[in-house]
C-alpha cells in the first residue's frame, strides 16, 4: 500500500481559506476512506499528524493551498521530503482534498504569544537548544526543529512540551521497514561487557548492531555481540515541562516562536 506524506501545515494561520472544492458529503466520505487507506499510516487516522507525516487538519498549507496545488502535492510528491508521488486518480485525490477541507477550522486561528520571547526561552533557561537544533545552532540528541512550524500543529507542540511521551512514533514510522529508513529517537539503553550502562537514542539498529547518540550527545556504535544487553524504552528522553518549569504564557511564547520555524531560508526572529 502506498504511503502518503503531505507536507503542508504551516504556522501562519492567515492562510486558512474557504474550501474551493464543491464536493458533496459522499465525496468527503469517500475521501475519508481513501485517506485512511493511503495516507493515515503517516499522517494519522484523523489527519492530525502521525509518526512521520504532518498535521493536515489545520487548513494551512506549505506547498500551495489551492485544490490544484494540493492535487499536485499528492500526485507528484514533494522532492526533498518523505512525501512520495502517488498513483491515485485525480478524481480520487479531489475526494481526499474535500475530506481534508472538511476538517479545517471554520475561521482563521491566530497563535498568540511573542516569538522573540519564545526564542529567548528556547535558547535560554528552558534548555531546549541543549538537545534541539534550529538552523545549525543547538544540540543533536533531539529532532532538528528548523522546520517544525511547517510540520506540526500548535496543539501537537504543546503536548510535546507538557507530555513528551504522548505521541511516540516508533513502530509507526516505517512498517516492515519497507523504505529502508532508520529508526530515530527510539530511546535505548545498552550495557557493555564492562558493565557500563549507556542511554541515548538509536539512530539505527538491526539484528547485529546498533548506532546511537548518547545522552552526552556522542555517537556510539556497537556490535550487539559486544554488549551484555540492549533494551528499548517506550519513553522520550525529553523531560516533561510542567507549569512550574514553564508557565502558560511562556509556553505560548515558545509555541509562537516554534511556529515561525519553516525552513532554513525563512526570516530569522529577532
Amino acid at each position, binding site marked *: 500500500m502506498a504511503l502518503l506524506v503531505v507536507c503542508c501545515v504551516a504556522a501562519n494561520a492567515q492562510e486558512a481559506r474557504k474550501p474551493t472544492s464543491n464536493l458533496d458529503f459522499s465525496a468527503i466520505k469517500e475521501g475519508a476512506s481513501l485517506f485512511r487507506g493511503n495516507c493515515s499510516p503517516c499522517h494519522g*487516522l484523523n489527519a492530525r499528524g502521525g509518526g512521520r507525516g504532518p498535521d493536515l487538519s489545520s487548513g494551512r498549507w506549505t506547498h500551495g493551498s489551492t485544490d490544484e496545488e494540493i492535487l499536485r502535492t499528492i500526485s507528484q510528491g514533494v522532492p526533498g521530503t518523505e512525501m512520495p508521488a502517488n*498513483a491515485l486518480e485525480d478524481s480520487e485525490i479531489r475526494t481526499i482534498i474535500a475530506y481534508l477541507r472538511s476538517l479545517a477550522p471554520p475561521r482563521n486561528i491566530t497563535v498568540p504569544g511573542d516569538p522573540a520571547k519564545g526564542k529567548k526561552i528556547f535558547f535560554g533557561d528552558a534548555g531546549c537548544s541543549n538537545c534541539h537544533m534550529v538552523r545549525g545552532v543547538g544540540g543533536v540528541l533531539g529532532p532538528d526543529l528548523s522546520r517544525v512550524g511547517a510540520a506540526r500543529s500548535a496543539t501537537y507542540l504543546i503536548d510535546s512540551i507538557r507530555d513528551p511521551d504522548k505521541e511516540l512514533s516508533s513502530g509507526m514510522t516505517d*512498517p516492515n*521497514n*519497507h523504505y529502508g529508513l532508520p529508526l530515530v529517537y527510539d530511546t535505548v539503553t545498552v550495557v557493555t561487557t564492562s558493565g557500563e550502562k549507556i542511554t541515548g537514542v538509536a539512530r539505527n*539498529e*538491526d539484528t*547485529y548492531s546498533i548506532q546511537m547518540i548518547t545522552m552526552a550527545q556522542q555517537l556510539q556504535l556497537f556490535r550487539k555481540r559486544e554488549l551484555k544487553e540492549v533494551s528499548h524504552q517506550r519513553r522520550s528522553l525529553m523531560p516533561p515541562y510542567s507549569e512550574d518549569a514553564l508557565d502558560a504564557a511562556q509556553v505560548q511564547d515558545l509555541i509562537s516562536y516554534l511556529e515561525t520555524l519553516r525552513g532554513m531560508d525563512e526570516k530569522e526572529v529577532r
Partner: protein
Amino acid sequence: MKNAFLLILVVAAAALQAQVTFERLLRAPDEPQNWLTYSGRYSGWRYSALHEITTTNASRLAMEWVFQVGDLGQFETTPLVVDGVIYGTGQNDRAFAIDARTGRAIWRYQRNLPDKLQPCCGMVNRGFAILGNRLFMATLDAHVIALDTKTGNVLWDVMAADHHQAYTFTVAPLAVKNEVIVGISGGEYGVRGFIDAYDAASGKRLWRFNTVPSPGEPGNKTWKGDSWKMGGVPAWITGTYDPELNLLYWPTGNPSPSNYGGERDGDNLYSNSMLALDPDNGKLKWYFQFTPHDLYDYDATQIPILLDAEWEGRTRKLLAQANRNGFFYVLDRTDGKFLFATAFGHVTWATGIDSDGKPIVNTSLKATPEGTRVCPGALGLTNWYAPSYSPETGLIYVATSSECDIFTSAPQPYRAGHDFLGSVYVPDPVERPTGALKAIDALTGAEKWSFPYFSSPNGGALSTAGGVVFAGDSDGNFIVLNAKTGHDLWHVQLGAAIYSTAITFEVDQKEYVVIPAGSALFAFALRE
C-alpha cells in the same frame, strides 16, 4: 584428429545449451548444480543437495560478484540457474541472463509498460519459469510472454486480462508438461481471480480456472448477491506439483474487499484456499479453505510443501503449509483431508482450529471506526516469503512477523480498477514489530528453534545438505544458520532490505549461493 576435436567442441556446446525438458524438471533434485523452478523442485522444498558449504566452513563465505539490475523498488526474484547461466527478473518487469561464474550480463530485457499500473505492493516480479529453450514471464500489465534463453528476444506475448481493471501479474510461472501456469494478482482492487495455463510453444491459453465461481457453479452461493463479481481471490504465488498424482497445488488469496465482509456474507469460496487442480484441464479435484469469510487479508499464498511421511502407521502423501493466518496446517494431498493445524505464533482472530479444519473465530474482533487490534496483522504471521523443508532435519523453516495491526473500518464503494479494501490497518503503535526465522517440525507443528530478527522479514529461507539454512532480513543482513540448532554461523550486511530468498548452484565444482538485496544480486562462495 581434427574431426574428433570438432566433435568434442560440438558435444561441449550441446551440453552447455541443453534444453530444459519436462523430464529434467521432474528430476530437478538430481541436478543440484542447477536451480530449475521457483522453489527449486516441484515439491516446493527450496532445498538443495549441495553440501560444499557446511556448518563448519560457512564462516569462510566471501563475495564472488555483484550484479546490478539498474532499477529501484523491491527486488523479489528467485533466479533460475541452468548449466552456468542465471536467468532472473527485476523491478518494472526487467529481466536478465548472467554468466553464473562472473556476474557479467549476457542479455537484458525491459518490458515497455503502460502508465498508471496499479499493483498493490510494488512494481515487482518474482521470476521466470523455463521449459525447452524458453523463459516464461508474467508481466505487470497482465500479459504472459516467452523469451529466448540465448538472446532475451520475445517469442510470444499474450494478454491474459485487462490491466485497466487492475489485473496484474507478479508471480513466477510454473512449467508443467507443455504448459506454463500462472495466477493473477489484484485482490486489493476487486478483480475476479483466476489461474491460467498457456501452451509453452504457442502461447495459446489452454484453460482457465476462475477462483470465484459464477452462478450455477459449485461455491457461488457462498457469496452474497453479486459480490462474487468483484470477489478478488487472486493467486499470486507459485504453486507446487505432484507428478504421481498429477495434481497441481495452487494457493489463493483474499476475497475483496479484503478487510470488510458486510457485503459478501458467506464463506467466499475459493478465497484463502488450497486448490488441487488437474493440470491437463484445470478441473478442480479438491479444495481446502483455511480462512472462510476473511476480514484480515489472510491470503493463503504461501508455498505448499509436499512430503511423504509416516502418518498414523502408514506412509501418506502430505501437504504442509505455514499459513498467513498464523496456523500451520498439514493435509492429505490426495484428497485434501485435514489432518491437523496448530498456531506457530501469537494469534487472536481465532482461538483454534476445530477437528474439521475450520477456524474457531473470535467474532468480537471486527474492524471498527475506533480501531480493533488483531493478531497477526494484515501482513500475516508469515507471508509469501519462501519457506524451506529439509528432509535431513524434518524441519520447515518459516520467516515470521510479530506484527499485530489496528483495523479501522473505512467502507468504500466498488469502482473498477480502484482500491477496494473496506478497512485500513496500521501496525500496533505500542509494540514495535519484530521477526524471527522459525524451525517447525513438519509432522507436529512444534517449534524447534527460533532465530530473532530485529525487524519483520520479507525474505524466506533456503536449506541445503550442508546442514545450513540461508536467510535474509529486512535490515539487509544475509545470514547463515545451523539447520538443526538455529545457531548463527555467519552474516554479511548488504546495505538494503532483502525481499527474496537465496538459491544455490554449482559451476566448476564450486558451490555458489546467490541472494537478491536492494537492486542487486550478490553471489557468495567459500574463500579458496
